[in-house]
Structure formats: C-alpha cells, structure tokens
C-alpha cells in the first residue's frame, strides 16, 4: 500500500473481498495507519517506514533519493513471512530490511513528520527551515518533547534529543524541498495530518494526557483548517 493513508478504510473494505489472505505491506507515514486492516482481521499486516524522498518531476519522470534502507516490521504475522516479504520487495534500487523494533521507528518518524507536516505548511516554507532558523527549531523542540513523552507513556523507548538530531539531519538533507502536506494544500488535496498530530493527540487523550500535547494539537488544527480553506476556494 503506497496510497495516501486517508484511503485505507475504503481500501481495507474493498480488499477484504478480493485479497484478504495476501500479505499487506503498508508503506505510509503516520500512526495507526494499519488499523483498518487489523480491524478487518487481515491475517498478515506488515509496516514499512520509508527513508527515501521521491518526487514527481514531470508526467514521466520521478526524482528518487534513498536516504537509507527502509525497515519493514511485523504488525501482525510471522517472522518467516516478514523475511519473505522483505526478499520480495528488496531490490538494488529500492532497498528494504527486516526490523524487529518497528514501533520505535514508526513513532520516531511520526513525531518528525508531525513537526514537518504542520510547521512547514503553516509557514509555507521548505524543509530546511529548522536548520536555518532558531525560532522554528525551538517550536519543533517543544512539539517533539510533547510527543516523545506520549510515546514513552505508550511504551515506546525514544529520547527527545535523538529525535531533534534526526529532524535536523532531515532538515539539512531536504533543504529546499516542500513537505507533502504543503504540496497537498497547494494542490487543494486532502492531507495526512489526521494520522500525524491528531493521532498522537488521540493516543494522549486515551492515556489521560490530552493537556500534555497542546502545541501539537494546535499546530494540527491550524494545518487542518488551512487545508480545508484551500479546498473551499
């Protein structure tokens, strides 16, 4: 599944009748994107966290830049089948590996994406803003601190400082590039913000920590509103 995550509910419903027993590998950003397939009792669901940039250059060209090997882990299924899935998808051009601790990778990237996909669209600026502008980095650090605390409460062992370091690396390596949510807003398309900021807010609420993610929530709400306004023009 390389589709936008907001299509997963409909896809799971459609595929339930067509391919329920095939292994499903989800190559998407965000938290909880596997839920529609788990809820419909798909027997094998795997999750990939992409560490690549891929951008349409023209109708017939794509710019593709692998940053590192993209890990795939088990949401539901066996280790043997995870290995089989990795072998099937891995290639010299687009590399994958099996990951035993996929949840930590998912959360780390989801937190980073919650920062990029809200702050950059709101500022209408490229990904490099965090390594260029101290004020933007300060906001990012506060969001990361909120989200990392929720991750820990949820049993995910990650350090906020490490997430900040990773964010800065990405900011430098993708300087000048526009994050997908900003492109979606510019093109009047739905965004994936629901599976980023709002999913973290939902998890915080379940943990009775809803007040601990106020900035993450506000940024998500502003991004959602900006998206809705752009599509109502």
């Amino acid at each position, binding site marked *: *599944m*390389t*589709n*936008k995550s*907001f*299509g997963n509910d*409909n*896809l799971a419903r*459609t*595929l339930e009748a*067509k*391919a329920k027993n*095939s292994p499903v590998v989800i*190559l998407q*950003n965000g938290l909880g994107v596997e839920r529609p397939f788990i809820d419909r009792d798909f027997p094998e669901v795997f999750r990939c966290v*992409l*560490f*690549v*940039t*891929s*951008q*349409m*250059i*023209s*109708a*017939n*060209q*794509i*710019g*593709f*830049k692998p*940053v590192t090997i993209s890990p795939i882990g088990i949401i539901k299924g066996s280790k043997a089948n995870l290995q089989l899935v990795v072998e*099937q*998808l891995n*290639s*010299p*051009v*687009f590399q994958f590996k099996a990951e035993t601790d996929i949840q930590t990778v998912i959360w780390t*990237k989801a937190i980073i994406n919650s920062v*990029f996909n809200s702050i950059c669209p709101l500022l209408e600026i490229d*990904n490099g803003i965090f390594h260029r502008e101290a004020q933007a980095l300060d906001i990012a650090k506060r969001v990361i601190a909120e989200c990392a605390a929720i991750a820990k409460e949820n049993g995910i062992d990650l350090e906020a400082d490490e997430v900040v370091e990773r964010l800065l690396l*990405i900011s430098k390596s*993708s300087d000048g*590039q*526009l*994050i*997908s949510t900003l*492109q*979606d807003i510019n*093109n009047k*398309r739905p965004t994936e913000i629901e599976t980023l900021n709002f999913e973290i807010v939902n998890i915080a609420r379940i943990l009775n920590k809803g007040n601990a993610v106020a900035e993450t929530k506000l940024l998500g709400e502003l991004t959602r509103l900006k998206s809705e306004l752009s599509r109502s023009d």
Partner: protein
Amino acid sequence: MKIFIIGAGAIGKTLAVALKLSDKNVVLVREALTTVRVRSKKLKSSRTTAPNSKRRLKSAPSAAFPPSTASLF
C-alpha cells in the same frame, strides 16, 4: 508471485520500476478515495531508465497516472 502495488504516486511508481528492473511480476494499481479502480497497468521495463542514471527513473506509462504529491520522509 505477483506483487500488487496500490497507489500510483511517486513512491508506488518508483517501487514498481525498481521491482520490474529486478524481474519481479508487478502490477501497479491506482487507488481512489472510494474504491480500488479497475485501471491498472503492467509496467514495461523498456520504458525505464537505468537505476544509476543520476538516480532518476522514468515512471510507468503516464496517461493513467497523472503527477501526484511527493512523498518526503
């Protein structure tokens, strides 16, 4: 084994081309908001460029797959 890739955006197309270059049996399927569209096309390896040519890949036949959002990590 046949690999179905759902979502013909930048990632889906890139993955399809990468797998096709490795002689895998791949079908790229466009996803719509309400249903899985019937429109699907098998990729033709003859329309791809070498993977190391400036890291730029030509995509699948474009008529059914208009440009879409970039997937950035």
